[in-house]
């Protein structure tokens, strides 16, 4: 009885998740059949003209997420190292709990802070680079970095904790300084765990919706002419998620082609976040 019931409920839960992937694949089939890979590589998205090229959205998502990771990664890792390697057990637990608490701040609250505080700050601070407004990819990247910080700290600290204390002790007994121990013992041995933490954070940042939606500017088709210049970061852009959370999702339902293009974005997002999370999870398993 117990057994049958738990099988039934488990299978229901798993089936609904399989259905989720299935629905996105099936509902987006129209656009894949029409455009094939050009749907992903195409640069123009004009739904009134029935042009659906997801490239600029992909670009926006990846740029914003990498910026966030580039900012939050080193800072978060540094903080995690300090917590794991310098602080006594008690302080460590308190700080760790605090950081986990902060990791739960809802994204809509970050969005509110972003729209009311960060937008203006970016606009004024980067004035000499002539941003058109405060809604830029950079704004979204910084906001996302702040959101990711607690996650990065917490997961990196877990990874560092997984390095046995005996290893640290042995290194210190040889006369190595704390810094040398960190470089030669802790970081190399926690490498997998740390990259895993970054991958999980990347997955989370790719999927973040409402906070980005509020500050990214939602400008379609913004692909830079030059890949080397940092100027495009100070322009408005659009990410997969800001498109999915925006007005078009409501408008599109009922128009098979448009809807299928929207669902295609969902599928791409599923694949990206799924891949990052899966990779991160497998690495974490190996680290433990």
């Amino acid at each position: 009885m117990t057994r049958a019931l738990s099988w039934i409920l488990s299978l229901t839960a798993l089936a609904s998740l399989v259905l989720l992937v299935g629905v996105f694949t099936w509902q987006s089939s129209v656009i894949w059949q029409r455009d094939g890979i050009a749907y992903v590589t195409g640069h123009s998205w004009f739904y009134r003209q029935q042009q659906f090229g997801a490239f600029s959205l992909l670009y926006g998502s990846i740029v914003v997420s990498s910026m966030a990771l580039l900012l939050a990664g080193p800072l978060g890792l540094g903080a995690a190292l300090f917590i794991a390697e310098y602080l006594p057990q008690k302080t460590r637990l308190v700080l760790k709990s605090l950081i986990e608490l902060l990791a739960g701040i809802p994204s809509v609250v970050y969005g509110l802070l972003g729209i009311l505080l960060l937008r203006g700050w970016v606009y004024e601070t980067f004035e000499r680079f002539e941003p058109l407004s405060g809604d830029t990819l950079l704004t979204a990247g910084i906001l996302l970095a702040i959101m990711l910080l607690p996650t990065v700290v917490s997961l990196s600290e877990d990874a560092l904790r997984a390095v046995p204390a005996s290893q640290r002790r042995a290194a210190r007994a040889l006369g190595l300084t704390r810094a040398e121990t960190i470089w030669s013992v802790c970081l190399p041995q926690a490498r997998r765990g740390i990259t895993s933490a970054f991958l999980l954070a990347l997955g989370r940042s790719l999927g973040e919706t409402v906070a980005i939606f509020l500050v990214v500017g939602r400008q379609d088709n913004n692909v830079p002419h030059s890949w080397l210049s940092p100027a495009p970061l100070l322009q408005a852009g659009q990410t997969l998620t800001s498109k999915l959370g925006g007005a078009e999702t409501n408008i599109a339902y009922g128009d098979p082609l448009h809807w299928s293009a929207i669902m295609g974005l969902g599928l791409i997002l599923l694949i990206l976040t799924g891949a990052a999370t899966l990779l991160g999870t497998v690495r974490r398993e190996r680290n433990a």
Partner: protein
Amino acid sequence: MRPILTLGLYLATAGFVSAAPLKINGSTTVNLPVAEAAEILRAENKLDIQVDTQGGSGGGISMLGDGLVQMGMSSKPVSEDDRKKYPQCDFHETRIGEDAVALIVSKDVWESGVHELNKAQIKDLYGGKVTNWRDLGGVKSQRIVFFNKEPGRGTWEVFVHWLYGSPKLAPQVNFPEVGGNEETRNKVGSTRGAISQLSASWADGKTVFALAVSGDDGQPVEPTPNHIATHKYPMSRPLFVLTNGAPVGDAKTTVDFLLSPRGQKLVEKHGYLPLKALAK
């Protein structure tokens, strides 16, 4: 405390009462008077009304067309395309007031001397052919930052209808998008060199300024109530609530209220022209 009592009442009667609520969705422009009317109707007539503004006018039309709501709010007439798209729905428009789409600019643009634009200039602007305010009569050199109303918003449709005749004929453009009216006003007000389309009543003359627009005759016209009422200002637009067929039941109560003197006062309160101003 009243909501708590109401909750108790609901809990007690849950399962017995199943009157369907009146659901309204659509334009943020029309939403202001309607939402306030709904508050009054909920309190005085015990109507169960839910108001949402997802997707703007386009959202209102499509959700009414799909039967997801019983009343739509729109700041543009229902187009033939929409009627074709939802053949099962008999869109019935009730005009509750009149508004105009203004082109609003930030303070620095206004102070730089740009107070009016003609149709050709606006076309260049929207088409991305001019990118500096100096080319549009500004004293200072300042890049133009165009915030475009997002798809589905009535404001945008009225704007391109006037400029190009139809949304389909509008050029493909890439501008940062803005949604609701307050968002638009805030972004334009806080950005140098900014311009956007916005309901004229929202142009406060302090943070954002409405430009005069010259039509085909070349005479610049400000979006003043008088000019809107007489349709001298080219981008004036009716404000509608939409129903499937003539309004009945709760929808009729709501529509009647909106057309009553009290309802019309709400329209006026939010800066739009009441129907009697149009009759003049």
